[in-house]
């Protein structure tokens, strides 16, 4: 059995999560409930759960506060929120599970499945460190992100180190400053959205570059140079890129 603690400021929410767990996830047992951060931290300490359902918005703080207060690499967390845009970026970068209220069965099962899989794995807690590290920072200043692998362990990459990323059939390849290339199971399109508020710029259908790393612009030939890479830029985007680059 997997022990779980549910932290939510609304009783209805807590009830519904425990109800649904009982109904669809019999392997999980809700051992504790809390209505705010303070209580939540107490409950986690008390029950030592493997899984915590964590509401993001509570009267005395956020789910992150609970995480920061109680995290000791012993549990996985699933964030639950009715509607939250503010923390979405941070959560996505860290590849932490998030389900939305009203909770439907599929997303619950999918999130629980993903998380249960990770329980007991090595380094699976790094994502929470990334989360806490990035927490509270504007999009342009986030430090790290987690790259989910189709198989095998995830990689944690410093945002600073990314030269550019390249979209491929069902994955995205990250080209780093130290010459490494890392794949991500996420699509290129997922990252163009995720990186849009950061200092990345999509130069064509399959490439997105980190603007500060561009060493040379070749507007005539519609090419850019980053370290030893040379990339094509569509004509329309070149003009915007020139403006951006000059700003930088």
């Amino acid at each position, binding site marked *: 059995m997997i022990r779980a603690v549910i932290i939510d400021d*609304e*009783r*209805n*929410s807590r*009830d*519904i999560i425990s*109800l*649904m767990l009982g109904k669809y996830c019999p392997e999980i047992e809700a051992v504790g409930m809390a209505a705010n951060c303070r209580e939540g931290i107490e409950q986690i300490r008390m029950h030592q759960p493997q899984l915590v359902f964590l509401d993001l*918005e509570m*009267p*005395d*703080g*956020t789910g992150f*506060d609970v995480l920061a207060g109680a995290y000791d690499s012993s549990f996985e967390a699933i964030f639950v*929120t*009715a*509607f*939250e845009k*503010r923390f979405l970026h941070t959560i996505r970068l860290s590849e932490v599970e998030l389900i*939305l*209220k*009203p*909770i439907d069965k599929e997303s619950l099962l999918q999130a629980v499945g993903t998380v249960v899989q990770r329980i007991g794995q090595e380094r699976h807690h790094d994502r929470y460190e990334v989360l806490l590290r990035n927490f*509270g920072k*504007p999009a342009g200043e986030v430090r790290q992100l987690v790259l989910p692998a189709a198989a095998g362990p995830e990689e944690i990459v410093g945002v600073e180190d990314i030269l550019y990323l390249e979209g491929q059939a069902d994955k995205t390849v990250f080209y780093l400053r130290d010459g490494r290339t890392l794949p991500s199971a996420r699509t290129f399109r997922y990252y163009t959205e995720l990186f849009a508020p950061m200092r990345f710029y999509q130069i064509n259908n399959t490439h997105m570059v980190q603007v500060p790393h561009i060493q040379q612009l070749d507007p005539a030939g519609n090419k850019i140079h980053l370290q030893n890479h040379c990339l094509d830029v569509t004509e329309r985007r070149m003009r915007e890129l020139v403006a951006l680059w000059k700003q930088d």
Partner: protein
Amino acid sequence: MNRLIVTFLLFCCALRPAGQAFAQDTLALDFTAPVRELDVRPYLQLFRGSPGINAPASIPPAAFVQDTAVFHLHKKALHTVNDRWLRFSIKNTGAKTATLYFFTGWHDALTWYPPAPQTPVATGLMTDRGNVSRWDRFAFPVQLAPGQAGTFYLHVVNRFYRENNFMPVLFDAVNYAEFRQDQADHYKSEALIIQLLLGMLLVLLAITIINYTQLPDRSSLYFAGYLLGLIIFFALRLETKPFQLSFFHFCPMFKYYWDVPAMLFCFYLMYMLFGNMFLSLRERYPLLEKAYRYGAIATGVLIVLCITLIAMGNYQAPAIIYKAVYYITFIPLAISFIALARRTRHHPLVRFFLFGSLSLFLLSFYAFLVNTEPVGFTPLPELVAPYNLLILGVLLHVLFFAAGLSYRNKLVHQEKTKTQEMLIKQLNKNKDLQRKLNVQLEELVKEQTTEILRKKMELEEQRKLQLDIEYGKKLAEIELKAIRAQINPHFIFNCLNSIQLFVMQRDFEHAQKYLSDFSYLIRKTLDFSRRNFISLADEITYLNTYLGLEKMRFEQKMSYEIVIDPTIAAAELEVPAMLLQPYVENAVKHGMNNDERVTGLLVITFRLAASDMLECVIEDNGIGIERSRALRSLPPHHQSSGMEISLNRAELLNKMYNTDIQIEIIDKSRKQANDSGTIIRIFIPQL
């Protein structure tokens, strides 16, 4: 009368016995016997004098001859100066010293030389001035002692073109007085007529001058000149009427100067000038006007010439000039009359002018024709008798002219009246026109003013529209934000979550209730977000529903109360849509977030702060806005923006509707240290 006397005298002469002819040289006469008009021609010796001789002593006695042809009983035209010396010797055969009177007639200049020691006496029409009783001096006293004889000389000089009766006679004192009486009576009638005429002329002159001052017309002026000339002329004629009163005897020469020149002046110069003006010949008959004008100029020159000649002592030449003028102008004047007569129909004034002219012309001509003086046809009135015809002519002349002038004045007046009427008409027309124009102008101004006002309003509207659009945009933005903020997505999904729970728990009644309330809230939110103002009743219902849903979520953790002043007509008051909701939501959130109190209490109060001011108070017992803010400082970019949006909306509404919505936020702990919570006071003016 004269004739009678003369006939009588002649008769007497014829009867007188020729016994005295023996002493042709000396008349022997009993001075005491009555002597009445004794013809002394047989005893007179004459000598034609010359300017150099001025005393009888310088004439040789032999030069005196008897010449009875010199004497005449009537007026006579003179063509040269008649300078005669008369010598008369007489002897008093009576027993007493007595005085007889020697009379020869009314002459221009007479000098009487009695024997010494008596001194010579000078008299005459030309010499006697006002300082002497002149009419007494034409009979010279012949005084001799009984038996004494004496020789008397009389120097007669007639320079004028007319010589009065020249007949030497003797009177005794009584008969001389009688003679004087007769003469005075004889001339009285003539003088009377002249005086009458003068009176009339003076009256006319006065009237003419008065008229002229009233209506300055040149013809009146010329007529006045003509009248004045006539008046002076006739007044001067009195000078030659013996024993009559006269006006100008202080200046005996004046009558000679104003004789021929007067006639030229009155009947030619002024007449023609007057005709020109009176008939307006310049416009109507330029040819005649020219003729009259040149005639007048010529006459003027002749007048000056005549006066000069008279001043030089030549009285004959002016008479010749006058006669010449009369004869020369006779036919042309007649022609001009005919020419004028042909125009009578077109010009009524011509009639007056013609009648006046013709009456003088014809009467004078007739008078000249029937002249009783034995001088033949002459135009010189001095030589014409009866004089009354001439006077009548002049009088008619003057009267017709005067009447013509009045008629002319009438015409002028009529013309003036007509012109005035026309002027008045024109003026009225002008006034009408002006009025019309004014009305038009006013209309135009009105139109333009309206146009300007319209444009201004349009502009204003445009500006307003633009502002509205701007505000609208801003409002739309804020409203969008407001919708997002006010229906907190959290709230929506939490609600849905709750409903889900009820469904899962098979509590369908609650689920239904929750669902319908939720639907109501969403519907109202969507509805209100499109409106700026909603009624207070709607707002209250909305808040009630909202709080009801919140309470369902939080159950006993919160309670709320909406207090409405019973005097408020909630359906009529208006509040900005969705303005209160963010504050209420905040209050709900904060009210439950107080560890010291189990239950969050929320009180919303509506009351009238003034007759037109709605006051909403939202009060909670939470931790207070300040502490809440401090707690929330963790994510710095996060801000509960609902209240901010409400504040912005209030500002925008204030601008848009020119109203003054005020929002006060008070932390209770500020007022009282042991108290906590937040009070939001919103003042909404009612329009």
